């Protein structure tokens, strides 16, 4: 079954993972800019990372017939240093011209601090100025509820932002409804422990419907599974979901959101 992996950090994965994803039916992988597991020491570190995302990673993916797209930003874990963030944000416009860039992301909050919020506002402004799609990371665990509320307030208060051009990622049972109610898209991340399991993700679909929602593996250097999306598709099948309904979630929905960017072509 064909699918799109709308959120994966492939710079942290092996070439074997690209092969397994292609064998499982993946047609395109979308890679938001994120935290490397350590703080970069200067804007030059981000320049190199953005070059990796826009020039080098698409070539790795292409070896397995996969399209590779990316999102650019400074992530919220490195947003406490506002001066660094300003310098990194100033680098982004030159990379937006690259043909695999979908928008600004994954921006958002981590610990819900004032500086993180300031940097979020700066990057929402950048997206608005350059008419870019927005992909938002919501905080982990105990910080998610508060962070999601703060993020939605920032986005709703900026009248330039069209809700249907924003995806709020890592939703769970306590945040999905408020996201969908705002007219934004919701992303469910399939993690073994800290986010949604396949069973819970399908529960959310059965409860809140399958409009403006997708699921992703967000596979990275931590505990995660690059095949989480096709495994959840299999679980949907076990629960009696029809092939057409499964394809809507794992292929058509991400395609419908992402094709709002002129760069998203399969």
């Amino acid at each position, binding site marked *: 079954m064909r699918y799109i992996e709308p959120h994966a950090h492939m710079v942290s994965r092996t070439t074997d993972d690209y092969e397994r994803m292609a064998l499982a039916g993946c047609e395109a992988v979308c890679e938001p800019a994120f935290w490397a597991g350590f703080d970069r020491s200067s804007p030059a570190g981000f320049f190199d990372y953005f070059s990796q995302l826009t020039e080098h990673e698409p070539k790795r993916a292409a070896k397995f017939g996969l399209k590779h797209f990316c999102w650019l930003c400074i992530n919220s874990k490195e947003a406490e240093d506002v001066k660094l963030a300003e310098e990194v944000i100033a680098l982004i416009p030159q990379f937006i011209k690259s043909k695999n860039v979908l928008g600004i992301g994954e921006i958002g909050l981590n610990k819900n601090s004032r500086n993180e919020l300031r940097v979020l506002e700066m990057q929402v402004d950048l997206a608005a100025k350059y008419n870019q799609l927005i992909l938002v990371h919501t905080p982990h665990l105990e910080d*998610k509820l508060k962070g999601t509320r703060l993020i939605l307030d920032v986005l709703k208060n900026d009248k330039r932002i069209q809700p249907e051009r924003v995806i709020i990622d890592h939703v769970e049972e306590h945040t999905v409804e408020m996201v969908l109610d705002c007219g934004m898209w919701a992303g469910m991340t399939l993690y073994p422990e800290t986010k949604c399991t396949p069973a819970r993700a399908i529960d959310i679909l059965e409860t809140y419907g399958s409009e403006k929602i997708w699921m992703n593996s967000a596979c990275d250097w931590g505990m995660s599974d690059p095949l989480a999306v096709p495994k959840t598709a299999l679980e949907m099948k076990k*629960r009696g979901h029809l092939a057409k309904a499964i394809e809507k979630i794992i292929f058509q929905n991400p395609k419908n959101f992402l094709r709002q960017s002129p760069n998203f072509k399969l």
Partner: protein
Amino acid sequence: MTKQQVLDLYFLDARHKLIEIAAFLDRAERATGKEDFRLKNFRSALARLDGKKKNRAKNVLLAFSDQTTKPIAKAAGKGAVGAYSKTK
């Protein structure tokens, strides 16, 4: 799905997880030293499974969540522990 189908697909998995929770609570009780806010949060979340209340998953997540509304002054670190305490 019918209730029978849900039970056929998920009962053993849920039973296994429930026993793991019971064993975790026994283990924490046997251990020496003081407990912290995480166990208090955990017990509060467990109470939300009881009875005929709906939206149990949502309510458990809410039990572990920071329910305040204002941004904090500065992020002291990057990680999350899974439970909230005003004084942690």
